[in-house]
């Protein structure tokens, strides 16, 4: 196994999606940034929604 293949194998075992890396590398850098920023905004919205939901939960004695 050559050194590149060893790194790929180590990455696969660690759970890194190599197809996703290829997809990213095919994009221009500006597009990588736009996709990243969109993903971050989505994560923050999900967290905000969870916080709102959690705040609405009532404690119970039972």
């Amino acid at each position, binding site marked *: 196994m050559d*050194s590149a293949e060893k790194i790929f194998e*180590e990455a696969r075992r*660690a759970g890194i999606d190599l197809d996703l890396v290829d997809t*990213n590398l095919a994009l221009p850098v500006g597009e990588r940034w736009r996709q*990243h920023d969109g993903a971050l905004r989505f994560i923050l919205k999900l967290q905000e929604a969870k916080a709102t939901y959690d705040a609405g939960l009532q404690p119970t004695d039972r």
Partner: protein
Amino acid sequence: MTPDFSQLIAKLTDSGFEFVMIGGYAAVTHGSSQVTRDLDICAVLTDENVELLRRALAGWNPRHRMTPQRLSFLQFPKAGERVNNLYLETDVGVVDILTSVLGLGDFARLKSSAEKFEIDGRVCWVISLEDLIVAKEAVGRGKDKLTALELRVIAAKRKL
């Protein structure tokens, strides 16, 4: 806060503030699929540079995120006051400005091997892939080690 690092970088670049992008967003620039919550950059924090930075960020309510009162960056530090690092929060995202990087060195060291990217007509200097791997491994946290491994994949793919 609505994060928009692309806009933040564009503003910093247009202001004439000289920096090298480091950290997670540099990893994204090189092709990493991770998501990061802040923009890390390395620069020399002279009075003149702090002033350039202040003017660039002025419209986005920059404040020191490590202070309980969220002190305004527009007022602190005072002129002549020496700072090593700035940890700021703005309306378009968190930006940390460091004067050196663990395992590598200062701005001059990073700039000497930085990679130049042209994005939307602007030139942006980004820590080299090799240096970023060293920096991520030097930090040594689990998530940084995983990013370093992903970056090693990218480095290996570059050589194919």
